[in-house]
């Protein structure tokens, strides 16, 4: 019995390694393909880099007029913005392939995915990873550094872990929203605008303290679509701010767990979508 379990574990581990190996190769191919068009790539980098500052300038202008938003200073809001930006940037870069599922279904490219002996999730995940998305992550990281210099955070090991946890969890949570949105595409074929509300809209929302939003909106973005766990709750811990909404303090540390659960939901939604596709076609 123990022998069997060990063999199963070993097989699962080998499967994981093979999957990772394939993922890295497919993403590497993506990068090489994107670097084929050097001029266009460079131009995209420049235009993306300029574009990404607009949101941040908005925040700075807003706070230069009001000096605080709901008791949060510029530096503190930039901390939210930076965490949300880096997390969203990572998530968006990781799952770009899901954002283009609609096209893949319409052109039957998804049929090809189905005829290969690898998981549909893995293949879609590795299907489109855009190098130029690094720009957004880079810009948000700068915002984060500015936030650090504007606030006087007393750094502890726990706070560093919470910050890193927030970035990783935030990446998984935003990526999961993209995946769930993509799963709906199996029914609607067209990418729904509703997905964009939660992804791009969500990033914008996460850049401000959740306490400024209406009750129902806050509850929704904590318990249904857990965006509060990306930046707001971890930021409360890092800044040692009291929670005006009096959620249990433990919530501020729960981001990784919430992200893992939300990812499982996304994964299940994806499998459901693929099964629907198998019964209806495009």
């Amino acid at each position, binding site marked *: 019995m123990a022998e069997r379990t060990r063999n199963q574990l070993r097989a699962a581990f080998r499967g994981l390694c093979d999957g990772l190996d394939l993922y890295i190769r*497919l993403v590497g191919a993506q990068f*090489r393909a994107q670097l084929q068009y050097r001029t266009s790539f460079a131009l995209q980098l420049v235009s993306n880099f300029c574009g990404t500052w607009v949101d941040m300038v908005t925040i700075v202008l807003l706070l230069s007029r009001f000096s605080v938003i709901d008791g949060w200073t510029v530096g503190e809001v930039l901390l939210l913005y930076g965490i949300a930006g880096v997390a969203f940037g990572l998530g968006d870069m990781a799952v770009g392939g899901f954002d283009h599922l609609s096209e893949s279904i319409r052109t039957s*490219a998804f049929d*090809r995915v189905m*005829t*290969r*002996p*690898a998981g549909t999730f893995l293949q879609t995940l590795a299907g489109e990873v855009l190098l130029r998305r690094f720009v957004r992550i880079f810009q948000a990281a700068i915002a984060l550094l500015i936030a650090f210099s504007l606030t006087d955070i007393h750094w502890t090991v726990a706070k560093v872990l919470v910050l890193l946890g927030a970035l990783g969890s935030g990446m998984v949570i935003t990526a999961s929203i993209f995946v769930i949105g993509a799963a709906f595409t199996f029914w609607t074929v067209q990418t729904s605008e509703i997905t964009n509300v939660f992804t791009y809209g969500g990033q914008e929302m996460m850049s401000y303290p959740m306490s400024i939003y209406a009750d129902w909106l806050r509850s929704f973005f904590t318990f249904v679509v857990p965006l509060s766990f990306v930046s707001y709750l971890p930021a409360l811990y890092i800044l040692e701010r009291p929670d005006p909404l009096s959620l249990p303090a433990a919530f501020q540390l729960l981001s990784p767990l919430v992200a893992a659960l939300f990812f499982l939901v996304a994964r299940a939604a994806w499998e459901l979508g693929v099964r629907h596709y198998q019964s*209806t*076609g495009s």
Partner: protein
Amino acid sequence: MIEVTDLQKTFRVHRKARGGPLSVFCREVVNVRAVDGVSFSVADGEMIGYCGPNGAGKSTTIKMLTGILQPSSGRMRVAGLDPAQDRKALAKRIGVVFGQRTQLWWDLPLVDSFELLRHIYRVHADAYRRRLDEFTELLDLGPFLRTPVRQLSLGQRMRGDLAAALLHEPPILYLDEPTIGLDVVAKARMREFLAHLNRARGVTVLLTTHDMADIERLCPRMLIIDHGRVIYDGATEAIKDRFGGERTVVVDLEEAAPPLSVPGAWVVKVDGPRQWLRFRRAETTAAQVVAAVAASSRLVDLAIEEPDIEEIVRQIYEGRPDPT
């Protein structure tokens, strides 16, 4: 190798009800039976043509046989597996070529696609090397192995796609319109390679095509389906003898004229100065028909059409008796 029993696929199609502004909300749901009780079996090493007009249910059948779609009912067995249950296991035993869409990485050199597929299919490095060398020689891939796929001609790309589908040495190959858009030389080369593959390797091939010549050259047996049902399953030779007996000469005259009268041929269509004349091969020849036309009117251009699959299906329905 392939065993299909009473296969059915029904799609629910939403149709907008006609009328008022609220019609979006009262859509009609219609069940469309794309595949309606198809049964056939393909033996190990057989090469079979799977034909039918557009919308007959060909691609739906292929999609079920590859595990892309689940059947509504019926039984399938491919290489000992149920495609609906074992999609991934089956994927390793089949090769699929869709003529109209490539599976190659557009922006990368051809050989990079092969390398990636080697990892997707987990082909051992030695076996991969051996097969790549073999296909490079047979399909003459050498000159463009390092060229980005987007720069290849259609013929080169199709050869690349064929090699890509065969790197994992599948015992079964599905080909969907592999010669579409190719010129005569490229078509001939493709057919030669497929025949070799079938003869030397014993690969079982299911070929879907519009080109009757593909079937005649490659497949001793053919299946014809229409409206989701098999209307013919038998020797290709018999179909050719029964329905391939008629050909059409298309003539372009200098100016529009009333339907021509030519012995042994009859006009089936007139479009301005262009006329279609059909004749039976057993009764007269294209040369005689053309000579007769040229003798009576001023002939500008001409072409000869082979009967296509749509034409054959039409004739099967008409139950046209054997012309000889």
